[in-house]
């Protein structure tokens, strides 16, 4: 009985882990610059990679400096070539810490949000 239960658990866990093209909450998987990182050269864009595909509607990203001033060009949107990716171009950045705020709507209409900082070295 116990072995059967353990086997069922493993099978179900494997099912839960299976990859899917779309259809669940879009959570941030990776970012460039990386979450909480310090970079030596000012990046020209921020690229966010999510765990699921994004809908353009309600999906946005904003980058602000330590004073709360927008430093992105307002062109953040899902990448048409890979809808799990969102990119936004940046104005020239001075050394300092910047905050990235993102709001995502996945293809099944579930919302997620998050924010993180990265630092540009002097």
């Amino acid at each position, binding site marked *: 009985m116990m072995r059967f239960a353990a086997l069922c658990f493993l099978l179900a866990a494997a099912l839960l882990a299976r990859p899917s093209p779309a259809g669940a*909450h879009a959570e941030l998987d990776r970012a460039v610059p990386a979450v909480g990182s310090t970079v030596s050269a000012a990046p020209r864009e921020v690229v966010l990679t999510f765990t699921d595909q994004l809908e353009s509607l309600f999906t946005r990203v904003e980058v602000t400096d330590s004073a709360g001033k927008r430093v992105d060009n307002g062109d953040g949107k899902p990448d048409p070539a890979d809808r799990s990716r969102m990119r936004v171009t940046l104005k020239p950045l001075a050394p300092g810490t910047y905050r990235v705020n993102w709001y995502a709507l996945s293809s099944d209409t579930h919302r997620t949000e998050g924010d993180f900082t990265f630092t540009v070295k002097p």
Partner: protein
Amino acid sequence: MRTRFSVSMRGTLALAAAGAAALVFTAAPADAHCFVGKRFFPAGISFDDPCVADELSAPVFSHIKEPGEEDEPARKRTSFEFEFSKRIFEDFAVSVGTAYNILKARGEDRRTGWENLELGFRYQFLTLPKSEFVASAGLSIELGRTGTNGIGEHVTVFTPNLLVGKGFGDLPDSVALLRPIAVTGSIGYAIPQYRTSLTSETDEDTGEVTFSRAINPRVLQWNFSIQYSIPYLQANVRDVGLEAPFNRLVPVLEFNFEMPTNGPDRNRVTGKVLPGLIWTSKYGQVGVAAIIPINSRTGDNVGVIAQLHFYLDDIAPSVFGKPLFRTRP
């Protein structure tokens, strides 16, 4: 009595099918399982998260040796618990649950059967995304005589309860690495339908029947957990480079306590500490924890609990992704 607070209503399943059909093609953004701002609260292993959601626990497996009581010997309990919950409105859900038990005492035959059906109703009355705070209130009803004779109790038990969750994402930058921490808690008071129950016993030799009256105790139940979310760490604080499957882990420490407020065990606390791990995916989560009794009244042996929990709103978003009735645009 199960620790998990179920919430549900049987007849709503038919309503669910009809309502869901009408909502399949709506495109408004939806909130689903327990996302509160940046925070995701996974379902607890031994007690539920504070949100209402479309979810299925199938099953929560547990195995532990329970101490004997008076004339009853110690026994091993293996349990498979099931619970289905469905949102009726954005902030209101119903659920139904039960558990299949296998009981084995030394020198006795194995007993198996179903616990009583448990219905529940839950209202998520406060959600503060910026503060990562959420609270819900509910009523759980364990229906007497709906389980297997000798396993399920004969008395219906009503348990009003309150659940809360708080993430620490608003901590200052100086302690940013503590932001992935979250705490959840619940408190409930189990009130039996009848204060006492009359039981009968027949003497096999003489045929004489004796009656005795036993108190059905009211029981205060409280649970809390502290958890550290690796997904939160990597997405909102610092990408430490963990890859799958470690980037989806949530180490958790849960605590369960019970205390009868009347009857022979009045004011005697029993409790368990459950150190464990939860692994979350797109469609559900797997949780495993040890069950460590806090005192001899609770038991002397370490048990185990494992949870398989499905996020129905992500598995079948067109059917379960939305509440049956929308109250908000």
